């Protein structure tokens, strides 16, 4: 019975969505291999750690199946979070954690040049050291795309949810960090009320008072526009747009690598154009990350 009922309603929806998805599927599967292969430029580096551990996947839980000893050359192909896909001269492929690659040297070392470690431990020759000019060492590999927790990252994104007055709210936000303390924020929130649904676009500034603290407090200030969509036209005026402003404060802590937890309070003032502007308190919790 249920199958018959659903079959009645499927064709109308399916004709639109299936067509769209088929186009997407063919576009992605057809074009992506070309894009992927075009970007697959390898970077050769020389191993200076005692050995590299090649995992079968980009995670500490994947087993180590190969090791590459010091002095060998590997090619770096991709990065996924903290892990790099490398391939050695014997066509062995695996994922290596970032901390093992920070000491590798770019390129291939000169044949006669000992590695820095060898130079440090080898006995000195008896000829005059002042006339000897050792060859400059190869540069160390560095990936600007890899962001440490204490690096100067610039972009943040976050998702929070909570209560806006007595209603549920979801907020998605992005921030550009102007310095360690100050950021410019752009946020969109969705309030699902009993009588009115609201979609809000907000622009503001956030100041982290002590960004170095483990639990960092911040204050925020901003303005925005609210699109109101009444559920019933009998009691509410029609769809309309109004202005709003807010002040807020919150707490943020680094919970895991590049991953932060947030609790936020904001006091909104809705400028309705009448003498009685409305104040709404909003409490949210959520997470944010930088990239």
């Amino acid at each position, binding site marked *: *019975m*249920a199958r018959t*009922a*659903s079959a009645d309603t*499927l064709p109308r*929806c399916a004709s639109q969505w299936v067509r769209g*998805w088929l186009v*997407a599927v063919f576009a*992605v599967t057809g074009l*992506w291999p070309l*894009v*992927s292969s075009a970007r697959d*430029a390898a*970077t050769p580096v020389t191993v200076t750690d005692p050995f590299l551990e090649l995992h079968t*996947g980009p*995670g500490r*839980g994947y087993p180590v199946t190969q090791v590459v000893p010091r002095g060998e050359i590997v090619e770096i*192909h*991709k*990065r*996924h*979070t*903290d*892990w790099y896909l490398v391939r050695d001269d014997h066509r062995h492929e695996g994922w290596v954690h970032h901390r093992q690659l920070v000491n590798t040297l770019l390129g291939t070392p000169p044949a006669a040049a000992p590695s*820095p470690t060898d*130079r440090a431990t080898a*006995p*000195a020759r008896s000829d005059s*050291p002042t006339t000897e*000019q050792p060859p*400059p*060492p190869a*540069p*160390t*590999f*560095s*990936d*600007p*795309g890899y962001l440490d927790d204490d690096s*100067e990252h610039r972009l943040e*994104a976050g*998702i929070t*949810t909570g209560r806006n007055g007595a209603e549920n709210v*979801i907020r*998605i936000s992005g921030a550009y960090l*102007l*310095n*360690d303390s*100050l950021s410019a924020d752009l946020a969109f929130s969705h309030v*699902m009320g009993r009588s009115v649904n609201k979609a809000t676009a907000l622009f503001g*500034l956030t*100041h982290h008072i002590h960004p170095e603290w483990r639990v960092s407090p911040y*204050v925020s*200030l901003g303005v925005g526009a609210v699109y109101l969509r009444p559920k019933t036209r009998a009691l509410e005026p029609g769809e309309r747009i109004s202005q709003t402003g807010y*002040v807020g404060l919150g707490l943020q802590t680094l919970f*895991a*690598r590049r991953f932060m937890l947030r609790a936020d309070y904001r006091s909104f003032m809705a400028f309705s154009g009448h003498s009685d*502007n409305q104040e709404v308190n909003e409490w949210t919790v959520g997470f944010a*990350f930088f*990239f």
Partner: protein
Amino acid sequence: MDRWLRVLLLSGLCALATGCASLHLPSFHLPFMKDQVVETPEPLDGPETALPTEATNAEGGTPAVIHPVVQRTAVRPIQIDSQDFEVGPYVGVISIQDFGVTALYGARAAYHISEDFFAEASIGHTTTGRTSYERLTGVALYTPQQRDFTYYDLGLSYNLLPGEIFLGRRRALNSMLYLSGGVGAVRFANDDRFSVSVGAGYRVMLNNWLSVRADLRDRVMKSPIGGLGRPAHNVESYVGFTVFF
């Protein structure tokens, strides 16, 4: 109104005064600038390296045993192609409480924050069937337009169990079992309803950039029927592929 304006202005003054005090022009602190090539300095053949040699010469006139050659290594930034983003469509079925089972279509985009967490946004759509009441009485409670059931979901997933799938003797595919949770909104019958989703999924990497995923979610929201506000559990199961870039 006056009180609120005072708070607004004082807060703004406080935030901007303290924040702007340490403001640097962004053009001088762009991320790529700190990773400029550091030129290799000259080897330390000055007075610092001469000290050990003199010490050994003073003892017996023998040549220096240890000649430390300390060289600072240059750092050259190389932009490695990263694959932290993931997008793809999915299809499946959703069982909407009181409305039966219907086909589900959707798309999702994810960002992998670390090897443990990834944030994901998804949208889905289905057209609901008829309720039991409608089937028994023949009275339609909703128009065809009102039966469109569209949701979005913003959530976080945790990679719980990494693993491998072995195909024959020579081929193994990486896999991952992950737990997901999220919040979102459902638009149904011209109304937006808050929803919470929990579930789990399984990802199999076909190669380094293409994966197949299967998910099972329970999307909980207030029931649209009767205005009772009781929670409605909508269980959905879907499969799809994603590409990493």
